[in-house]
């Protein structure tokens, strides 16, 4: 009912403003509050021309200031009132508006949602009663209306009553809560085990027993974060490689961390588990519907805590099996790539991608870092001097103790390692012309030795060709071993 009232309200408002067509207003409103972290609804319906607060995140800065106009402020306030009233309306309507907890797509998430709503409604009822009495006396028992104080100040009976009744209400709340909790702590065997490891600031997923494992990084481009480009609809909630899970199967998550405490949270599953370095935590879920489900790290884990989202791509068991096979094939192909002869251009292209995905969070896209914690790579000794190549490989592969520099040996493939090192040695005017191949990395990983490419090619390394970020010059020499 309230929903209709709101629709009416929006219609009238739209008619009055004479600009936005009513249906679109509704549509926009639904998008804004309807998307949540929950599903990947069609985003094409986003009306490019919509105005005001609703779409302001997509507009550029000067346009955003439009909310400062009186009309904008009015809009803000009305939205606020609308949301306030939304707080008092039944669950069904709230779910559409996403000012509320998601119902999610698992049995557990639904029972948590029901619990949440039950207790919320109990609170509202108590609130109405208590505040009702209070506002009644504020209105009626004021001195200005000639009220005379009645100096009663004690009643054991009343005190006993308002101790016992709340206690009973609490018992009523605790019973369903206990039931749900027991469900959550179910330890029966799962069909699929996923190990989740939190890193500063990404997640690693391992499909135990399947030999499939990968890292999942934020994919939102820095240009969007720093307001150079407009923001995608899934701004900050997009990763390069989502966790793919089957529906209808019991999945067990083994959650741990490799540095500080993180917390793996997907609201649609109502799974939130702290990832604690050194220890392993367990949670489980059984997804009912295919879809894209988004979440975020929920425990402060340092600088980029806000930039390590979680995306789960739930598929039917058949699609999941297909994906798993493809994934294994791709991994085999990736291994093959290691032995391939790479050109400078190929490595630079791949290196740029890898760098921006993995390294740029600390060392920045422009290679200037954030000294003193995250040193600059641009012009740094290690990245430009020939005799430092081994040290450069070592720091990327093995990390540096006592600093934020992690060991990337396990996180990146040989190809990616070679590409990113090559990129760092040739980007931002570091034009060394050095080309590091996946084979050299593999060799380094095995023996701890770096062997320069044969003299012919390394001697003739084309310093003149000046590779740049945008147009890496092609090294004509294939750096074979």
């Amino acid at each position: 009912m309230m929903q209709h009232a709101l629709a009416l309200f929006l219609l009238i408002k739209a008619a009055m403003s004479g600009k936005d067509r009513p249906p679109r207003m509704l549509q926009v409103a639904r998008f804004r509050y309807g998307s949540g972290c929950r599903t990947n609804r069609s985003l094409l319906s986003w009306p490019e021309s919509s105005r005001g607060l609703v779409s302001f995140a997509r507009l550029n800065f000067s346009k955003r200031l439009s909310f400062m106009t009186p009309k904008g402020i009015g809009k803000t306030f009305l939205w606020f009132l609308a949301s306030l009233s939304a707080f008092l309306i039944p669950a069904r309507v709230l779910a559409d508006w996403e000012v509320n907890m998601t119902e999610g797509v698992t049995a557990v998430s639904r029972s948590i949602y029901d619990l949440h709503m039950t207790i919320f409604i109990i609170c509202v009822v108590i609130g109405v009663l208590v505040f009702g009495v209070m506002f009644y006396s504020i209105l009626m028992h004021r001195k200005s209306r000639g009220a005379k104080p009645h100096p009663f100040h004690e009643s054991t009976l009343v005190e006993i009553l308002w101790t016992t009744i709340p206690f009973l209400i609490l018992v009523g709340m605790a019973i369903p809560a206990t039931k749900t909790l027991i469900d959550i702590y179910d330890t029966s065997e799962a069909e699929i085990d996923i190990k989740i490891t939190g890193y500063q600031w990404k997640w690693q997923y391992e499909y135990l027993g399947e030999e499939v494992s990968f890292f999942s990084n934020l994919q939102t481009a820095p240009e969007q974060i720093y307001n150079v480009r407009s923001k995608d609809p899934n701004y900050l909630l997009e990763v390069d490689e989502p966790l793919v899970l089957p529906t209808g199967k019991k999945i067990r998550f083994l959650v741990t961390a490799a540095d500080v405490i993180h917390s793996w949270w997907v609201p649609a599953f109502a799974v939130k588990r702290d990832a604690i370095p050194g220890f392993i935590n367990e949670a489980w879920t059984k997804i009912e519907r295919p879809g894209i489900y988004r979440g975020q790290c929920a425990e402060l884990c340092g600088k980029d805590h806000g930039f390590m989202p979680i995306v789960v791509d739930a598929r039917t068991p058949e699609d999941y099996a297909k994906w798993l096979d493809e994934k294994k094939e791709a991994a085999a192909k990736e291994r093959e790539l290691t032995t391939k002869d790479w050109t400078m251009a190929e490595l630079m292209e791949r290196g740029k991608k890898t760098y921006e995905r993995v390294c740029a969070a600390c060392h920045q896209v422009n290679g200037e870092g954030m000294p003193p914690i995250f040193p600059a790579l641009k012009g740094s000794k290690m990245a430009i001097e020939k005799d430092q190549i081994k040290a450069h490989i070592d720091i990327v592969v093995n990390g540096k103790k006592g600093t934020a520099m992690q060991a990337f040996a396990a996180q990146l493939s040989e190809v990616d390692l070679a590409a990113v090192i090559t990129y760092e040695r040739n980007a931002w005017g570091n034009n060394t012309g050095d080309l590091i191949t996946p084979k050299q990395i593999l060799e380094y990983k095995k023996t701890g030795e770096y062997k320069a490419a044969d003299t012919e090619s390394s001697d003739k390394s084309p310093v003149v060709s000046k590779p740049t970020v945008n147009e890496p010059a092609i090294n004509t020499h294939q750096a074979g071993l």
Partner: protein
Amino acid sequence: MSEKDEAPVDLSRRTVIKTGLVAGGMFGFGFAMVPIYNVFCKVTGLNGKTDPNPYQYSAETAEVDTSRKIKVQFVATKNAEMSWDFKPSITEVEVHPGQVGELEFFARNPTGERMIGQAIPSVSPFQATNYLHKVECFCFTTQTLEAGEEKIMPLRIIVDQALPRHITKLTLSYTLFDVTTMGERTLPS
């Protein structure tokens, strides 16, 4: 209050001493929470922390319960600062309760320096922690590897016959930490 007869200064002094002792005691209690917590973890298996001492193998406990099989899963995590290769030879064994499960972990130090590592075990679900015994484990002490050195480290485990029936699968996780700066030692119990 009979104490009221005394001068307020003396009374105050007494209060200061009493409350000061309480404060000092609570400071001590903060530290006492460390062993209390450890005992609590041991009893409940909280955090899946296993017994840091070798399990005493004896004939009575060795009786094998062939009526059921338990899957034991092994996972290895490296702390972000740790650059060793570290993995189990097999990722899962199936054993009867009471039967010894054997496998190896492989470790290699790819760096150019001597390093000391410490593997921290953790069992999930933690209700099973106290039912997973380690007869032999590389986690009882630190492991030292010279530059480039590799090592095969045996692990022998027994699942207790008293493991609750509803648990059919356990995960034994090891997280490898770089403890070079702390030196070689055995894990405090």
